[in-house]
């Protein structure tokens, strides 16, 4: 196949976004579960805060709830973000949408990729019918999502379809990491000095694990754990696959792959600007007091990149 159909490019891009979103949510729910076990006896309000963070990182109009009780917050988080069919960002909605997109562009996928997506959906379908407990289901789905990633990276041909898939994955990843940082880092920075250090560290570790980066952080940064170093790592490290810098650089490479006739497209220009900002303005960005605004501004940039891709490639 030569150039892709615009509609198929859009489908595969969205499939990537939905799969990444599902993977991200599964991991974050898992982390929230473990953090709750760890700190509920010591600082229940921080456990509640962490669960409430879902509404900021995955904001959906149907999920604006305020909680004070850990169990209520946990049950709501699990049900709304795992099996919430009304929540457009939930795992079940994301996998359902990924599968619908996969069905439409099945000719671009290998049998292995489609089977893995389908299998993941079947787990969730069983969950919707009440055949599995949410915690068991979460484990199964997380494994299945990893299976999809494995099948994708091991079997798909690296053509234009792959590039759009990767763009979707990276854009979604960068966007959610920015929202994760925007919500959690300012809270952690503001934490008073008499803070319970073990709890504080547990929450920082949970932030890193939500972004799939705890072990990578340890290898690079060692044992030191501060909100600033966590933010710096997840924002600027170019080697860890869930950082903003890594994702933006990947998007830049992807866009170079599909650039039209060597002309710098609007999307490529926007991504290029973001990459430069991250590469050359690290200290300035980190040093600013309004870190939330920095993350928010970059997230808006990501939204513009998405709009530009849609204009340029999907609505020809």
């Amino acid at each position, binding site marked *: 196949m030569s150039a892709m159909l615009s509609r198929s490019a859009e489908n595969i891009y969205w499939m990537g976004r939905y799969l990444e979103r599902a993977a991200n949510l599964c991991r974050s729910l898992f982390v929230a579960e473990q953090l709750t076990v760890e700190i509920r006896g010591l600082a229940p309000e921080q456990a509640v805060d962490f669960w409430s963070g879902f509404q900021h990182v995955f904001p959906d109009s149907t999920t604006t709830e305020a909680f004070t009780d850990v169990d209520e917050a946990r049950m709501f988080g699990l049900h709304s973000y795992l099996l919430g069919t009304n929540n457009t960002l939930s795992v079940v909605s994301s996998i359902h949408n990924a599968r619908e997109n996969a*069905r439409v562009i099945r000719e671009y996928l290998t049998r292995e990729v489609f*089977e893995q997506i389908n299998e993941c959906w079947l787990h969730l379908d069983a969950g919707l019918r009440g055949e599995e407990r949410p915690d068991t289901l979460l484990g199964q789905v997380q494994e299945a999502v990893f299976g999809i990633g494995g099948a994708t990276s091991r079997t798909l041909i690296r053509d234009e379809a792959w590039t759009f898939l990767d763009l979707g994955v990276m854009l979604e990843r960068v966007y959610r990491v920015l929202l994760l940082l925007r919500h959690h880092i300012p809270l952690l920075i503001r934490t008073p000095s008499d803070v319970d250090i073990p709890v504080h560290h547990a929450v920082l570790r949970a932030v890193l694990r939500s972004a799939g980066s705890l072990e990578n952080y340890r290898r690079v940064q060692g044992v030191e754990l501060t909100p600033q170093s966590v933010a710096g790592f997840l924002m600027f490290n170019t080697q860890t696959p869930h950082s903003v810098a890594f994702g933006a650089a990947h998007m830049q490479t992807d866009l170079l792959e599909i650039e*039209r006739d060597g002309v710098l497209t609007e999307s490529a220009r926007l991504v290029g600007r973001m990459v430069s900002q991250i590469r050359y303005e690290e200290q300035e960005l980190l040093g600013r007091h309004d870190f939330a605004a920095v993350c928010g501004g970059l997230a808006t940039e990501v939204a513009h990149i998405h709009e530009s891709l849609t204009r340029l490639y999907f609505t020809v």
Partner: protein
Amino acid sequence: MADRFLNPICGTDVGIADICPPVGLPVMTLAWKAAEKGYDEALVENDAARGLYRSAIDTLGGLDDDEVRRRERLQQVSLVNQGITFTVYGGEEGAERIFPFDFVPRIIGSDEWASLEAGLIQRVTALNLFLEDVYGDQRCLRAGVVPFDLALSRSDFRRELVGTRPRHGIFTHIAGIDLLRDEQGGFLVLEDNCRCPSGVSYVLENRNLLSRVFPEIFAKYGVRPVDLYPQMLLDVLKFAAPRGRERPSVAVLTPGLSNSAYFEHSFLAREMGVPLVEGRDLIVENDQVSMRTTRGRQRVDVLYRRVDDEFIDPVVFNSTSLLGVPGLIHAWRAGNVTIANAPGAGVADDKSIYPYMPDIVKFFLDEDPLLGQVHTWIGRRPDEAKYIREHLSELVVKLTDGAGGYGMLVGPSATREEIARFAEAFDADPGAYIAQPLVEFSSHPTWMGDEFAPRRVDMRPFVLYGESIRVLPGGLTRVAMEEGSYVVNSSQGGGSKDTWVLAEELVP
């Protein structure tokens, strides 16, 4: 000798035998029962296997019922995981269903297939000559072979296309001819499908599935492969490309995800390595068809369309269609794009043209038909309409433009109320119906979850018309899953089987 590529840390070498342990000594626990009525494809009266089936039945009979159930579960899981589905209309809108698969293969010997193949080639040749004539000189109409008014009044006759001749004169590049066996075991044509015959993806997937789940059944047979179909189809489509297009660009045109055969559209596009497009992906400018791609518009030369004529071009046909491409027919008439099958081909498979097929074969080829067909009464003939009306309870009555088992009455198994309701519809427009006797068509052993039982089967071989006419060795065998049922359609709960054509006339 130690395997040099074995990871020394992981150590143990797990072989296929550990994953799928060998079956123990054969235990004949499962009985086979021949059909009480009609021809049994695999068994004779005393429940003994016919020659071709001996090895397959011995192999399956050698498995105990637990093992058969285990394999059946594997098969189900595989179907579900692979999403081998069709979409059901009505009721639960857009619901995906698994097409039930029965693992007992249907086996056809090479000699029988050779004569069947010759008959199919003859029939598809005649169908195409008829189409070329109907939209051309209309010699066969003038000669009275088919009544003028009958042919020209069919809803699938496209007046707008009279005078057009597709490249090489081929209208129906892909045909599916539905066959059944009568009580004597001879094949009869039940109907022709010249528009968008579906089902071939299941032929390929069934073979794939059976060879994975029951590989040992194949051991003593030389089964002709079916996986060459996508290449055969692509060759046919390229052959049909507009003149002067050396490297034609081919696409499959689908109505979209909610179409019942979407799985197949996607499957064929994937297997041929061509894009699967919808109407909204295409644009016609200056009588050239292009698709919208990420690098701008790219020309399309051949469309394997799976969209009915009615919806293919809102400028010429149904003006409300959102599935089609405005201007497509004009581009086709200008010779800038090939549409396969050609628009207007549906007139040849209209159920009221079917009774004339033996005469059509004779007229165009000056040969006797090699394939028989089922006697048919035509509702538009007053005396035959009267006969149909008086014998509704004994006949199978069908709408001439119906498909998929809809708008059909199976008189002998219908209730009094169903017959009365159908009679009302028939009286309102007898010309819209044809009727046939209930053929006691053949049965085939089928696994019903705890036993092998006879179930009725038909068969749809696929015939491709390109540089020459070729028949895929096999076809879609559909099976009625209900005891005593004559309805094999997937939309009505039917299933399918792998159909084997043997390479040599070898009795294993």
